[in-house]
């Protein structure tokens, strides 16, 4: 189990390296610097800004030291030093330390990690709201439709889960905003202050964000409950005269929920990435919205920092789920 744990955690590293490398390479492939679009800056200001952010250095290998000692340029250490002093080298080293540098939007007065620290709690609360909704609605709905198979309730939950799975939260969000503002006359967009603390403001966007996961959880719970229902140990328990609530809770659910746990990883990833869109639609003051703004103004530092942060978060969520899975099901532990 421990070896398995170590292997799973180490597997995150290549993913993050690729994400960092590719993100950086792509950002550098774009024409023009981050300060081009803003306004007309004088050449000297631009130069000073570029120097401040280290943008005057070569992108991959800094050959500055090479020309002075040409004979030594075959020395591999030179290349390493050149790499470490390049834009990418600096970015990678600082990122390892958790420092993504100042954002371009703030002209250096705020760092990317400060923005993440300020905005991420809002996104986290939204994701938490969505997860809670998905689980406390999805699991009971799945259990009920499995226990009352082929009844009206079952069909209803099937319809809800089919719609929830196929219609993306993005479209649901748009339709809910329309419905609330046009038909029910409720203001769907909350003021920025509403997002401080875990308040009522989170309910609607949280439900919209969690709808897809809820649908998936319902389907999975239903199908695995149906499978468990036919198992011998359930029949034995029934034959022994154990109360049906106890059978459901102790014997069936414990086994039926294992597949549900496995989808929590991808679901969490969906909740995290889905939050960009939901946050933009409902004007939630979180990291997702900040990321979208960064894209629009091409704030490279912010884009790269947030991408790495999100990627690490998703990778970590997946590992966590793998571990829980191994913990819940002894058969998997034995195999590894």
């Amino acid at each position, binding site marked *: 189990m421990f070896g398995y744990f170590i292997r799973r955690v180490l597997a995150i590293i290549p*993913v993050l390296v690729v994400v960092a490398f590719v993100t950086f390479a792509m*950002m550098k*492939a*774009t024409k023009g610097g981050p300060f081009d679009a803003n306004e007309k800056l004088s050449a000297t200001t631009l130069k000073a800004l570029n120097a401040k952010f280290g943008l005057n250095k070569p992108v991959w290998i800094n050959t500055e030291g090479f020309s002075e000692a040409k004979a030594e340029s075959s020395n591999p250490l030179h290349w390493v030093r050149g790499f470490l002093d390049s834009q990418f080298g600096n970015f990678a080293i600082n990122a390892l330390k958790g420092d993504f540098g100042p954002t371009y939007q703030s002209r250096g007065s705020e760092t990317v990690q400060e923005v993440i620290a300020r905005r991420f709690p809002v996104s986290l609360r939204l994701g938490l709201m969505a997860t809670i909704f998905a689980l406390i609605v999805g699991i009971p709905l799945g259990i009920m439709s499995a226990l009352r198979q082929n009844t009206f309730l079952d069909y209803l939950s099937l319809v809800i889960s089919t719609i929830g799975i*196929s219609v*993306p939260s*993005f*479209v649901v969000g748009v339709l809910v905003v*329309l419905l609330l*503002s046009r038909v029910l006359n409720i203001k769907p967009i909350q003021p920025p202050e509403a997002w401080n603390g875990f308040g009522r403001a989170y309910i609607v966007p949280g439900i919209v964000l969690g709808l897809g996961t809820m649908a998936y959880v319902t389907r999975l719970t239903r199908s695995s409950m149906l499978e468990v229902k036919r198992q011998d140990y359930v029949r034995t328990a029934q034959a022994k005269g154990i109360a049906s609530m106890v059978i459901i809770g102790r014997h069936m659910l414990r086994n039926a929920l294992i597949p549900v746990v496995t989808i929590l990883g991808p679901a969490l990833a969906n909740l995290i990435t889905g939050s960009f869109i939901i946050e933009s639609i409902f004007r939630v003051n979180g990291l997702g919205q900040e990321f979208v703004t960064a894209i629009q103004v091409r704030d490279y530092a912010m884009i790269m920092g947030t991408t790495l942060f999100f990627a690490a978060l998703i990778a970590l969520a997946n590992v966590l789920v793998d571990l829980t899975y191994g913990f819940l099901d002894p058969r998997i532990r034995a195999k590894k």
Partner: protein
Amino acid sequence: MTTTSSTKVVPSDDELELLSRPPRSLWGDAWRRLRRNKLAMISLIYLIILVFVAIFAGPISPQSPGRPTGMELRERGTFRQAAWITDADPRRTGDWRFVLGTDSAGGDIFSRLIYGTRVSLIVGFIPMILTLLIGVIVGLISGFAGGWVDDLLMRFTDVVFALPGLLFFIIMQTAFGATALGKAFNGLLLLFITLSIVSWASVARLVRGQVLSLKEKEFVEAARAVGVSRTAILIKHILPNTLGPIIVAGAFIVPNAIISEAVLSYLGIGITPDLSPNAPFPTSWGNMILLGQGAINSQPWALAGPAIALASITIAFVALGDGLRDALDPREQ
């Protein structure tokens, strides 16, 4: 067994009919099962209609999808309401020439929706084909070759598989949106590449798994025994047997690609709207949602129209995918 049958067994009429029926192929069986699935069939018909709508968008749409010129130019800046709504302002009162009203620039919402079908379908299908192509090739090679080739390809696939899709799409689109590649065909070319770059990994895994189990099967051994070449075994014997799961995977890739395009266009980094009057791809539903959001109070159909269109196309694709999965792999039921 029948070897020592002294008593003559007379088959009943039912059995006779059963025997005289021509043998059904695997695909015939699958089609029969699919046909019995009402939801999947309704979805299939709806999607076929959408394909026709996309192809004949020009003759079907009541108005030009572009911006009005000349006489109607004065209507710019006012949203015309949907046809059944009367407004105090005569310029905003509904008109049956503009069924769902107009957007802020006077473009007819309904016609733009019709043209948007083109983008959604093409952005669903072409990345699906590219994704399947890459995934199948990698999966076939990896599963069949084994050894270090398999290891190398699978480690690479694992890394790609772990990349967060939407995040990656956003980075791609932001980075290349302003380049020549990003501008080609209103940004469609870049979207095709972006949307196929991550999702092939799951197809590759799927195909590899299939190949690994298939290559141990007797029919492959038989083919090898009679001297069929490795390439021929792979293409003639193994590939056709992996088609079922590949088709099902493809059916689910399409709605994902459609949604990703809509999300990217909603963020303003997807398709570039084309304002010229004869543009084949003037706008996409995601783009219309982006524009419609500003008019939520004055012209709700600018937002509701594309949102409903997107919802219905994804429901149809997912229902068809579910139906295909049940039809092609009855063991799942």
